């Protein structure tokens, strides 16, 4: 068996609905990339894409191989009786036991009014449509039945034999229904058929079969790797240009590359186009999908343009175009063409091309494809230690907001108090000269900058943080207070040693914890967490200049100060990655990662789930490491960091828990190795933490119906985020022995 290299995005479904920052391999704080700005990047049938005189071939029927479903009307007329449907009666053309038996009985009558039929109604389609069924007789005999698409005018007497045959008929607009009918004047009294694979698509060809259940679905075709993922983009029967398009917000002046995989079907030419907002310029590649030859078209004065067409497998071409966005709207479009460069023509209502994997990424070359659904693909954050530059792993964080404005511009919005600000004074933790200097004025008193009026509702836990670097002074402070400073809590740090001094006043703002993280180049991040009493309607966040005697009240010299960068106030008990803000508060969305395809690696009977991680030491809540589950807590194999900082686990089968007792080994804040074994064997369920075994239990059953492997979040995929780093997750499809579990997790 050959080994196939897989990329992160090939295995792990990841999303984060916003940007986020992380420490890159050079040790600098940086914004995550957007690897694909387009949403529903391989689903042009989705409403996110505008279809203009075009459509994506779609099976408009529901429950296409479940004729027993109520979506199918079983009807009769005259002497006929309603058809009797037996679900999953025989093997279907695809080899599955999904073909239904339908016995039509039109009674003793022999007129066209004596009828037994099945029917499905659809939302009226103002275009010609083609309906199709797979049919065979149950007993191998030959019978006639009538297929009808749309109005009664479009019916077709079908000869059905003992061999599976696909029959189809094109009806003329408008189309509201499809029927299989046994008429009294067209065949025997009883017609006993096997029926499977009903389909109704716009156009004059039946298309490949697409099974449906509760909703219509686009017909899928083989992509360049042979996987059924591609769609068919078809032209409407209009004289116009036929295209599909979507637009995203981008940065004006930045170069982007649009790429999409295309293959000829009935049409052999296509145009891939960038257009700006306002349609004052475009750049496009016109491609011959038989040969890969292409020309380019421009309108207006697009800049930094380029087009590349690359041959792929299975008749596909990767068409990519690059251009600098001239404004903040980037319109992505794919046009059908009747000839190279001809966009406007009279469509036949059916012909089209195959299309897959649209992507818009930064830069002048097409990146590897990243699939998206409702959000752009914001890159997962693989974080690094800012000092050692060692890889820390995949950063998983919950949703957080930075409640401070102008988080890295202390000369704007912030109010100085016996302080001045020199903007962009020194190299910052992001590697650019973006850090400000806070300078104590030559006046006796405290020297600080602040933002007030941050509303507080109820008792809250807040974490204030900022990056500091010693200048002339090597101390700095953070403070949370009420509006009048009658209640306040200040922490001062020695930026060289991390030693702290705490100065509380009043009782409504209570310090929970403080800490200092060391970065490179003399930078540190100071963090303080406080509870704010419900009696406080608002809070004020302060950054203090502290002199070299650790005094907060002193007379400055108008020159000396401390460097500051990236202030952040969050609601929560610990600081998360920096969220830059400007004129509004910004919310970073949660990191959501899972493995949703369990074949071929998962073993439901026995296994060992192993996780190497760094959980957040400051988080007081449960933090999930990894969980195999069915989407509920009824069936799961789960590893998590418990509230006390130790590892723990849950093995639940049909709601019955078999939880081993975990050793009292702390995993929070350190690189840890944890494994959980499960099986129904004696002592089959046990947890191993950093080389120490727990106390095993025996499970009567193993979890059933496992659907996914959640990474750093709970079974509902919506809470208990790791707020830390995943370094390695492995599933061994067997229960490891105690010795193996201990050895596997030894640090």
């Amino acid at each position: 068996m050959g080994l196939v290299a897989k990329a992160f995005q090939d295995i792990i479904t990841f999303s984060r609905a916003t940007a986020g920052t992380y420490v890159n391999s050079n040790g600098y704080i940086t914004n995550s990339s957007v690897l694909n700005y387009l949403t529903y990047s391989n689903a042009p049938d989705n409403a996110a894409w505008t279809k203009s005189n075009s459509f994506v071939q779609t099976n408009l029927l529901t429950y296409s191989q479940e004729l027993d479903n109520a979506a199918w009307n079983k009807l009769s007329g005259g002497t006929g009786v309603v058809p009797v449907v037996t679900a999953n009666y025989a093997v279907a053309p695809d080899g599955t036991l999904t073909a239904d038996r339908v016995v039509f009985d039109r009674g003793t009558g022999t007129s066209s009014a004596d009828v037994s039929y099945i029917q499905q109604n659809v939302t009226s389609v103002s275009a010609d449509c083609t309906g199709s069924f797979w049919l065979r007789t149950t007993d191998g005999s030959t019978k006639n039945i009538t297929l009808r698409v749309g109005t009664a005018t479009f019916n077709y007497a079908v000869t059905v034999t003992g061999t599976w045959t696909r029959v189809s008929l094109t009806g003329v607009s408008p189309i509201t229904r499809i029927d299989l009918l046994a008429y009294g004047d067209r065949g025997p009294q009883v017609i006993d058929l096997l029926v499977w694979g009903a389909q109704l698509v716009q156009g004059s060809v039946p298309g490949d079969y697409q099974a449906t259940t509760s909703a219509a679905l686009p017909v899928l075709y083989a992509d360049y790797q042979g996987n059924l993922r591609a769609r068919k983009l078809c032209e409407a029967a209009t004289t116009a240009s036929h295209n599909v398009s979507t637009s995203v917000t981008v940065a004006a002046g930045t170069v982007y590359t649009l790429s999409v995989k295309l293959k000829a079907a009935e049409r052999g030419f296509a145009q891939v186009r960038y257009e700006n907002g306002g349609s004052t310029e475009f750049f496009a590649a016109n491609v011959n999908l038989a040969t890969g030859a292409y020309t380019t078209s421009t309108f207006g004065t697009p800049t930094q343009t380029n087009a590349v067409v690359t041959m792929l497998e299975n008749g596909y071409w990767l068409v990519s175009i690059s251009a600098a966005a001239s404004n903040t709207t980037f319109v992505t479009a794919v046009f059908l063409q009747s000839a190279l460069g001809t966009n406007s023509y009279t469509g036949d209502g059916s012909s089209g091309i195959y299309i897959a994997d649209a992507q818009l990424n930064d830069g002048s070359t097409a990146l590897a494809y990243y699939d998206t659904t409702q959000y752009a693909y914001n890159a997962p954050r693989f974080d690094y230690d800012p000092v050692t530059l060692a890889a820390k792993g995949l950063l998983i964080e919950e949703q957080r907001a930075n409640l401070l404005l102008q988080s890295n511009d202390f000369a704007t919005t912030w109010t100085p108090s016996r302080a001045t600000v020199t903007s962009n004074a020194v190299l910052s933790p992001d590697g650019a000269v973006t850090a400000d200097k806070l300078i104590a004025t030559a006046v006796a008193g405290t020297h600080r900058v602040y933002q007030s009026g941050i509303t507080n509702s109820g008792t809250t836990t807040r974490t204030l943080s900022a990056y500091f670097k010693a200048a002339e002074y090597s101390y700095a402070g953070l403070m949370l207070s009420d509006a009048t400073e009658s209640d306040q809590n200040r922490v001062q740090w020695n930026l060289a040693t991390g030693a702290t001094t705490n100065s509380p006043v009043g009782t409504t703002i209570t310090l929970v914890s403080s800490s200092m993280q060391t970065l490179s180049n003399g930078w540190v991040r100071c963090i303080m967490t406080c509870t704010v009493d419900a009696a406080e309607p608002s809070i004020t966040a302060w950054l203090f200049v502290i002199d070299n005697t650790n005094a907060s009240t002193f007379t400055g010299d108008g020159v000396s100060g401390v460097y500051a960068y990236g202030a952040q106030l969050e609601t929560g008990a610990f600081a998360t990655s920096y969220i830059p803000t400007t004129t509004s508060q910004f919310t970073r969305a949660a990191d959501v990662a899972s493995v949703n395809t369990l074949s071929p690696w998962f073993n439901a009977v026995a296994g060992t789930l192993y996780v190497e991680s760094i959980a957040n030491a400051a988080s007081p809540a449960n933090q999930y490491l990894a969980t195999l589950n069915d989407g509920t807590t009824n069936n799961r194999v789960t590893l998590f960091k418990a509230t006390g900082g130790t590892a723990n686990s849950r093995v639940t089968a049909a709601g019955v828990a078999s939880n081993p007792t975990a050793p009292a080994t702390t995993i929070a804040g350190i690189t840890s190795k944890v494994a959980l074994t499960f099986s129904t064997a004696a002592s089959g369920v046990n947890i191993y933490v950093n080389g120490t075994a727990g106390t095993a239990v025996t499970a009567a059953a193993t979890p059933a119906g496992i659907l996914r492997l959640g990474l750093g979040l709970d079974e509902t995929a919506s809470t208990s985020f790791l707020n830390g780093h995943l370094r390695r997750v492995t599933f061994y499809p067997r229960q490891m022995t105690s010795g193996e579990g201990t050895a596997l997790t030894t640090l």
Partner: protein
Amino acid sequence: MTDLYLKFADQTEAEVHLYDFTEVDGALQLTPKYLNTDVLGTLYNVDNTDPENPVYTPLDGWHVNLRVGDYDPALDAFKVNPEPLIWRRVWA
């Protein structure tokens, strides 16, 4: 992907539209219907003329930001209208 800036009459109305209610061990548990739900709650206008005695004026409604793909069209009725020049909070 759509950003919705919503204003409900109060917290109760917001919860009806944005959360599923399930009973767990006798207690009502609220599960957000949309993963990216950011509750701002009551917003205030702050008059900082006297920084040590700011005056807070609560604005009408209960404010919630959503970043969604498909969503219940009924939420359109709760979009903040007219839109302010600067939103209090936006998605990063």
